[in-house]
């Protein structure tokens, strides 16, 4: 990791820590996904995105869509770290009347652009928002964070065609490829591979990177944003579930990682011991 990215490492660490504390409240949560995608979120929220604190609906903001509603814990963690959401609400995660429900919804949470969760919706909405930004002459970007599992939805491919057909160069799709969906490894459920030539054939600019390598993630975001081609961009991020907590990384990985009651504190303690400066 380059010295310049040290602070990004610190942000990613903090995102992981916030997410662990949220999951500890409920004794459950999609912590494997949150730990895995933390580096991508750190680069998004602390390097790439334009936004204004206290103005979640500022016209000029880059729109970050969470298609995968169950990743809400990860986005809450990033937005808490960014100061978009107050840290003291962290302990309300998943509680009745909390602004931080288990699955992300636009009506509940500042900064949550769409209601995700019905998988395969985000990219199509992103297409329409990207069209809308162009109509309004707004130079902002639309980011859509999706999962490898969503590549099984037909609507994802309808949206992929539409984005290229309409030259949506203000649309950046992010795929968290952790190769895990509800019933098992994504590549064994319904493989989307070979993904790079597939998206290229659909007319997209494609990058595939190690999504837990901050230097690579940052470089990919920079390329996607600065590219001067009238094509939508996609960054496929290969990530490791539970990244950053070794005793969870080596556990049998499932969609819903089993964590014992006494292990949350152990996980946080491990993170604290490894805290970047």
């Amino acid at each position, binding site marked *: 990791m380059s010295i310049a990215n040290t602070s990004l490492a610190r942000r990613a660490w903090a995102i992981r820590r916030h997410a662990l504390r949220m999951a500890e409240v409920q004794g459950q949560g999609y912590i494997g996904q949150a730990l895995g995608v933390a580096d991508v979120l750190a680069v998004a929220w602390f390097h790439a995105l334009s936004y204004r604190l206290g103005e979640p609906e500022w016209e000029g903001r880059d729109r970050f869509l969470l298609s995968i509603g169950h990743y809400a814990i990860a986005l809450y963690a990033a937005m808490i770290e960014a100061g978009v959401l107050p840290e003291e609400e962290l302990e309300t995660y998943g509680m009745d009347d909390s602004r931080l429900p288990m699955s992300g919804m636009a009506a509940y949470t500042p900064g949550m652009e*769409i209601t995700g969760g019905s998988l395969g919706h985000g990219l199509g909405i*992103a297409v329409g928002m990207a069209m809308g930004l162009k*109509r309004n002459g707004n130079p902002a970007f639309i980011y859509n964070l999706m999962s490898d599992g969503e590549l099984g939805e037909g609507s994802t491919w309808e949206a992929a065609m539409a984005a290229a057909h309409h030259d949506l160069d203000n649309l950046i799709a992010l795929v968290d490829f952790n190769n895990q969906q509800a019933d098992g490894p994504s590549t064994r459920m319904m493989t989307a591979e070979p993904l790079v030539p597939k998206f290229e054939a659909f007319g997209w600019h494609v990058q595939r990177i190690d999504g837990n390598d901050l230097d690579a993630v940052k470089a990919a975001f920079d390329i996607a944003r600065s590219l001067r081609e009238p094509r939508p961009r996609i960054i496929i991020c290969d990530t490791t579930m539970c990244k950053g907590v070794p005793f969870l990384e080596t556990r049998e990985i499932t969609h819903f990682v089993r964590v014992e009651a006494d292990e949350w504190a152990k996980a946080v303690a491990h993170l604290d011991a490894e805290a970047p400066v």
Partner: protein
Amino acid sequence: MTLSRRKSKYEARQPKGGPATSAMIASLDAEGRSTIPAPFGHALVEAAKTDERIVGLTADLSKYTDLYVFAEAFPNRFYQMGMAEQVMISAAAGLAREGFTPFATTYAVFASRRAYDFICMAIAEEELPVKVVCALPGLTTGYGPSHQATEDLAIFRGMPNLTIIDPCDATEIAQATHAIAAHPGPCYMRLLRGQVPDVLGPLGYQFRLGRAQMVRQGGDALIVSSGFMTMRALDAAKRLAAEGIEIGILHSPTIKPLDEATICEEAAKARLVVTAENHSRIGGLGEAVASALMRNGVHPAFRQIALPDEFLDAGALPTLHDQYRISVSAVARQIRGWLA
């Protein structure tokens, strides 16, 4: 009367002469009335002249939903989304998020059956001002169940936040287009396209969102109807009047939210209430009216004119409308029988 679907496909048939199978895009039979071309398309152009938020999207059906009129007038405000209803709806939601009022068109079968989850989650759950406008509602094509949206109202009535309109004729389609463009929430509107009969115009009718209105007075029975069945009811009432039977007609184009107050008020004065709808007997106007009457303690005799709970036959529309008892003569015959 034949039910072709119930016969064996391995036995030869001898079809009788008569009208050929309706083209899928056939205009509704005007039955001697004056017609207005593409009322939705022209009304949308008018609305868009003063409302810059309006944009149009279609899934390869601009021609057959009359959206082509808008596309020709405002090519830069029109999006061809190809044969892809899911992304058309999602993209409409995205455009609405950026401040636009999208009108998205396809056939009613595709919106209700294929795009339901997208209309529900991307539009209705977030109360976005997307207007889903769909041709071929109910039994308005002879192509068979792939294109006959006989259960679209049942499907959509269960969706929270969604306003549902089933307009009668060209005049009402034009008026309702302006009304839903101005309405802040999500709407689903059934559409008659092509040369559309004009029935309510000469009556001085004015559409009001959420309101049912008496379009004919008469004390022997009350028909509560929507869509082109109000046209049928008016024609049937004329025939029955010649026999001394006077039928009142309450036209209820807004299926949701239903104007329960007016329906109950008028039904309380009637000894027979008949609902008439271009839709399956399950989950449409008839059942909505019935439950409103029950909940409000209004208990007239109640009958339903509706399509059966079946996949319907292919054929020519006049044949099918007779066969499934939503033609003028079938409506008159059923009411005559119930009053006897």
